[in-house]
């Protein structure tokens, strides 16, 4: 199963995942410049991605905690997610995401 990720320079990456991985763990397998500073506990907003709309619709909605933490992200869009809060399942094979701008 694969995640299709676009990095900040437009580079395309296909990264293998296993059922139950979080999207953040998969994305940080490759050097896409995702910092994920808090290690995946929804406390820093440095794993922000845009999920392609057709895939966004397949995800369970973000928790209030994630929505609150997205306030610390920049350029938040309707399909923004914190990738550490996205649990990957077989139904998400082929999910397309784009890495959001990083903080300075």
């Amino acid at each position, binding site marked *: 199963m694969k995640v299709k990720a676009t990095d900040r320079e437009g580079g395309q990456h296909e990264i293998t995942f296993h059922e139950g991985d979080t999207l953040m763990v998969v994305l940080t397998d490759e050097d896409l410049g995702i910092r994920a500073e808090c290690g995946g506990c929804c406390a820093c907003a440095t794993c922000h991605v845009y999920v392609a709309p057709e895939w966004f619709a397949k995800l369970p909605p973000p928790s209030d905690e994630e929505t609150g933490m997205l*306030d610390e992200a920049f350029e938040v869009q309707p399909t923004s997610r914190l990738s550490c809060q996205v649990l990957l399942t077989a139904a998400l094979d082929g999910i397309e995401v784009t890495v959001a701008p990083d903080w300075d």
Partner: protein
Amino acid sequence: MTEPRVTTDVVIIGAGPVGLFAIFELGLLGLKAQLVDILDKPGGQCAELYPEKPIYDIPALPVVTGGELVERLMEQAAPFEPQFHLGQMAEKLEKLDNGNWLLTTDLGQELEAPVIVVAAGGGSFVPKKPPIPGIEDYEGSSVFYAVRKMETFRDRHLVIAGGGDSALDWTLNLQPVAASVTLVHRRADFRAAPDSVEKMRALAEVGKIKFEVAQIGGLEGADGKLSGVKLKSPERGEWVEPCDTLLPFYGLTMKLGPIAGFGLNLTENLIAVDTEKFETSVPQIFAIGDINTYPGKLKLILSGFHEAALMAQQAFHYVHPDKKLRFQYTTSSSELQQRLKVA
């Protein structure tokens, strides 16, 4: 807030869990420590990022929150009377002729010791800067990431951005001082304290401040002087909010900062150490916890605890080159028990 130069056995940079446990391990060997941390409280990431999150992999504590872990480490370190220099960044490190190191903070506090321990985790917590092209031209004149003196903002036209407590608190506190305040947040809901949000809404209702649901799209101005902030929202498109000052409050991020210039061997922003003493490429300077790297390194709090214990052994030899170090257990050694103030 600074004192005259302090001389001690060990200066620890970073008061996170590993820095705090280092106080204990050094203390058992009779060594005194002074700590520097950029946050205004001890605990590092445990205190700043996840004080209420449960941690499950601390030995003998099946579950403990970040905040509780810090409390317990502070309690464990207390007999050794550590001194904290908080709200300060370790800025400069230089070798003195007497063989000691001199660490100077950004507030000018000088700390001298034969041993320096870098326990800085992911680096210093500093405000996140929005990745807006050209924003650095306005920093310090029109763009501020923190409020040091409220007077700086008297009679200014402010745009304050963010939805957390800092954004809300400064909106409320600066409103009476500033010429105008516009709060910009990406949604109508806030994660800040409900009481502050209510007060903000009341001020907005009577026109004392403006609240815009929008995101920042860019800056307008010239020569370091802001004339407006470009705002955008899906409903309203783009517009310019006139202002002369922008205060972005988007939380904190971690940066290695001045430590990168300490002359230590770095591998991808981590400090390379040996696995016997956790000493860096520079003698008398150690690195423990998340900031270090070595083959097999795991970024776990428990690894940092182990590293602290081994570091302390070598630190002892630097502080007391002529003394022999006898290995002792806290269960049986009256000397250790006296240091722990239990005997």
